[in-house]
């Protein structure tokens, strides 16, 4: 596999008028393209690449976690990525669990649930909790000082039902917004609202 057999030039393409362009020079290094990363789920494996200007790119070959933001609550937590669930471009990438920007993944919900219950003293994903009988142990009911209790009571929160259901299973839907093959990271944000409805419908219609 040569590095320069992939080129990004337009000299090999026909012009706007349809004329075939004659080749008058060889491929140049500044036009090079490299093999795609096709980042999979697994124990972290990242290759460093020296790029133009002496800079570095981090080609993630395998990743298992990333930093995800909960937009409406304005927090981010590092979580494990469980599975790739939807990809608008290619179903093959879903089957092979390939991490790319714009892919919809399922992430581990525990850091977000812990933060929420600590801050608002309300239990998330009520249905499961009642069955498991863990309500007493969760952070929502841990002992707090009177001052802290007053602060917590003053905070208001409402989580939309679609999100609340996801906390029951312990898996949240999120979208990847970083480029794992370029930065070596798989970060993104949790889907909410209309975007969440849109992708849920797409996922259900596939099954």
């Amino acid at each position, binding site marked *: 596999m040569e590095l320069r057999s992939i080129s990004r030039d337009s000299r090999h393409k026909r012009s706007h008028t349809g004329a075939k362009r004659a080749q008058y020079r060889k491929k140049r290094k500044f036009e090079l393209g490299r093999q795609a990363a096709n980042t999979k789920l697994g124990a972290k494996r990242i290759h460093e690449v020296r790029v133009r200007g002496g800079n570095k790119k981090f080609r993630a070959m395998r990743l298992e976690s990333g930093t995800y933001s909960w*937009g*409406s609550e304005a927090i981010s937590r590092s979580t494990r990525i469980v599975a790739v669930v939807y990809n*608008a471009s290619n179903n093959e990438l879903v089957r092979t669990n390939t991490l790319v920007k714009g892919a919809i993944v399922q992430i581990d919900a525990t850091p977000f649930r812990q933060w929420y219950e600590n801050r608002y003293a309300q239990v998330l994903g009520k249905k499961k909790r009642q069955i498991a009988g863990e309500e007493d142990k969760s952070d929502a009911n841990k002992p707090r000082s009177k001052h802290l209790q007053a602060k917590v009571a003053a905070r208001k929160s409402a989580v939309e039902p679609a999100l609340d259901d996801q906390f029951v299973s312990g898996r949240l839907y999120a979208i990847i917004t970083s480029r794992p093959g370029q930065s070596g990271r798989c970060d993104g944000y949790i889907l*909410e609202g209309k975007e969440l409805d849109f*992708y849920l419908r797409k996922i259900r219609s596939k099954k």
Partner: protein
Amino acid sequence: MSEQTEKSFQKQETVFLNAKGVSKKNNRWYKDIGLGYKTPSEAISGTYIDKKCPFTGNVSIRGRILTGVVHSTGMKRTVIVRRQYLHYIPKYQRYEKRHKNIAAHLSPAFIGVREGDIVTVGQCRPLSKTIRFNVIKHTKSQTKGSKQFAKF
């Protein structure tokens, strides 16, 4: 609702849709492209999502501003603009007709653009293989007198 025609969720990148608490309805971002060009009301009040629109997307108009006649509207969100000019032949002291076609991106903010309309295009960064221009103003073609029956 109806602008979600693609497989991925269409939205404006700069607008956060899921803020807690009451957010103003029609949370839409638009900009003034400068150079005295008025941004159409459809761009401000509409619901379309177009990342290549000069008013509601991520392109800036800089460089050349050209005008021409709309030659073809068969493509999705783009038009071919035909610019005619006369080229002088010194030996014969006469002119010949020449033309150049420009592929330009047509934002959904401009509705009812038909062949024959006059259009102003502004240069932007390359949006595709042949598209480096974006429609920024549109004036309908004049039918000779209002008594002429225009095909609706």
